[in-house]
């Protein structure tokens, strides 16, 4: 306990330094600024803003990224409530009651409760991350290459099972990501692989190029297909603060949302989306009058918003302790860390305590920023929403292009980003989810390395993955999950075939 307090104190010491405080604030602000644009979710936002953090010291950069993440997520909630366009999957449920509240003139309380709920959930989850970080790290030290490989398999399977749509397609996307990550120099021999003698490819395909192309550019291409008719709530935002009865109604909902979100966030692959859906359904189940939901029930905003924020926070646990990103946003974080020369994993906590604890403290700070800064700025965000898309997207494109170019001063990277934009557009047209691909892309090198090492230690005997108990257990869970996910699909498809007969 005293350890925990000492560690948190260290963290807050780092986070409250004027420079880091400024990075966090700036991150939260810019994150909201981009995240509030309709159709731009946290993933696209982080991908677009990654380049601006490259010039900063590692701690500052990660703190700023955490700020961007929370800002973007909050921006997503804002568009859900005001425009009925969820910025990302996690805030889809927020539109149900949030937008109804806005139409009834209660946009202010809806936005406020979503910030307050998020803040409470963030506070609880921060403590949880700090408390669970140390014990989980000691477990991680027991892991050998075989266990690491199996754990990553489990993580990827989780991501597949929880992704929406076809399981097989999500699996294929992961494999595509793994394939793309193999381009470039081989880790062990340094031999150039699949780079076609293009010097810029010798280092592999840039992580930012893939992420920005597949998420940022493709997103814009898709948005351009729909003519912009947006249902922006025009009523003046009066009475920002929720009333006392509102708060009383929400308190238990926030509590339940936080609990559900914290648990679901730790699971790899799940994270914020599932948490938000689960919390909403749960709230509807326990409500005395479920028919209020969907017609502007404030609990219907409070619970999922708390849950997705709690989950967003606790999903840092597997990343910081095991070095394994549980979802695509965390995969982006890994990419950012690697660019700064930090290898995420158990050693971060022991070797760079100020980074680890500083980041945890800044998560809480990022949440606080949202309440303190973003809420009063709601009016500005609303005005931003009224800017027509034909003016917004060239601006976004410009930042993306200059951002990608400035990473390596390489025009080739910009061309690759454009190519991946087309790839992302094609994937979307064929109903392939790009998020598992990104996860596979980030985990690829780690997976290959551990697989090779495990095989070398076992002298080429692949049964090592099944004879080591931890590894076998992880693989068993993964297999079970996959079967559970595939069964209904097979049954349904077979039914379809038989119906046609």
């Amino acid at each position, binding site marked *: 306990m005293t350890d925990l307090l000492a560690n948190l104190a260290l963290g807050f010491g780092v986070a409250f330094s004027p420079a880091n405080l400024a990075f966090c604030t700036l991150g939260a602000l810019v994150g909201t600024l981009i995240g509030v644009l309709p159709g731009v979710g946290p993933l696209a936002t982080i991908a677009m803003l990654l380049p601006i953090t490259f010039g900063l010291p590692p701690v500052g950069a990660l703190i700023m990224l955490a700020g961007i993440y929370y800002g973007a997520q909050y921006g997503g909630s804002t568009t859900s409530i005001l425009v009925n366009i969820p910025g990302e999957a996690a805030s889809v449920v927020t539109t149900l009651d949030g937008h109804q509240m806005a139409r009834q003139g209660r946009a202010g309380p809806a936005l406020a409760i979503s910030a307050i709920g998020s803040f409470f959930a963030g506070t609880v989850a921060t403590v949880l991350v700090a408390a669970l970080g140390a014990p989980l790290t000691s477990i991680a030290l027991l892991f050998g290459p075989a266990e690491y490989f199996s754990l990553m398999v489990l993580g990827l399977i989780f991501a597949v099972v929880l992704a929406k749509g076809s399981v097989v397609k999500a699996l294929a996307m992961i494999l595509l990501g793994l394939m793309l990550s193999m381009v470039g120099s081989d880790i062990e021999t340094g*031999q150039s692989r699949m780079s076609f003698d293009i010097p810029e490819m010798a280092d592999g395909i840039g992580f930012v190029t893939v992420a920005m192309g597949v998420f940022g550019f493709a997103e814009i291409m898709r948005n*351009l297909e729909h003519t912009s008719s947006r249902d922006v709530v025009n009523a003046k935002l009066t009475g920002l603060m929720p009333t006392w009865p509102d708060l009383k109604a929400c308190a238990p909902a926030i509590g339940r949302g936080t609990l559900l979100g914290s648990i679901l966030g730790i699971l790899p692959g799940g994270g914020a989306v599932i948490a938000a859906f689960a919390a909403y359904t749960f709230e509807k189940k326990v409500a005395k009058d479920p028919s209020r939901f969907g017609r502007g029930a404030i609990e219907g905003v409070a619970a999922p918003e708390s849950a997705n924020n709690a989950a967003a926070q606790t999903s840092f646990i597997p990343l910081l302790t095991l070095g394994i990103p549980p979802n695509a946003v965390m995969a982006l974080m890994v990419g950012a860390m690697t660019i700064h020369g930090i290898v995420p994993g158990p050693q971060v906590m022991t070797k760079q305590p100020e980074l680890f604890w500083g980041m945890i403290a800044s998560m809480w700070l990022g949440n606080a920023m949202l309440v303190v800064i973003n809420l009063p700025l709601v009016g500005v965000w609303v005005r931003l929403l009224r800017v027509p898309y034909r003016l917004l997207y060239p601006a976004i*494109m410009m930042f993306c292009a200059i951002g990608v170019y400035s990473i390596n001063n390489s025009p*080739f990277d*910009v061309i690759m980003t454009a190519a991946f934009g087309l790839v992302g557009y094609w994937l979307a047209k064929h109903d392939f989810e790009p998020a598992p691909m990104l996860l596979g892309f980030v985990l690829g090198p780690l997976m290959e390395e551990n697989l*090779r090492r495990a*095989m070398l230690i076992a002298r080429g005997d692949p049964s090592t993955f099944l004879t080591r108990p931890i590894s076998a257990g992880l693989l068993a869970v993964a297999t079970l999950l996959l079967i559970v996910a595939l069964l209904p699909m097979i049954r349904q498809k077979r039914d379809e075939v038989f119906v046609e007969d």
Partner: protein
Amino acid sequence: MSEGVQASSQGAEYKRTIMSVLSPLVIGLLAIVGWYKTGSSSVTGDALLGCGVLLVAFAVALVVLRWPIRDPRDYYGGLFLFGVALFMLWASSDLPGMRGFAFGPGTGPRMFASVLAGLSLIVMVIGMLTQGPGLERYAWRGPFFITLGTLVFAVMIRQFGLVIATFMSIVTVSAGSSESRWIETLIWAAVLTGFAVLVFPIALNLPLQLWPQQTLSFSTILNFR
């Protein structure tokens, strides 16, 4: 696939276009060319040849046996991913594989590419067996101008400097929306360019050149790297 044949004879809804026959044919022929190019006989080469012949035979079977394609979205999705997997197999075929019980540089890519090939075939077969929502229409305007605008930036940034490259790129990208108006676009592009100059080279202190190079000449333009 027997169900498929029956369904087609009963006149169930399905689509089989020239594209759906040509695509596997072309990918199959490319795979065979890939096998030819790998030269010496290797497992990878044999796999490429096998898959190529399989795809060509499949294309023929599509026509001869009148197999229906119920969900073109999954069908093309799986087919092209299969093509990507074959391409990756070909691209990694020159890398050394297993040495004793140690993985070589080529083992990982070939392993993952094979699994991807298997999975994409499953997606493709599912696309033939089950009814789906059908192919979404591709819009050409947005993707075209967004890609073009980005390329304009990439080609111009080194030699023409940030100001001209950004301005030209924004104007090109703006053409992607049917709602853009010319005068507005030009003004907006100028404003954004000014903003970019303030943010990137000045505020973020990035080493970006603002104006065209002194040595700029017609012959150096193509050498944009």
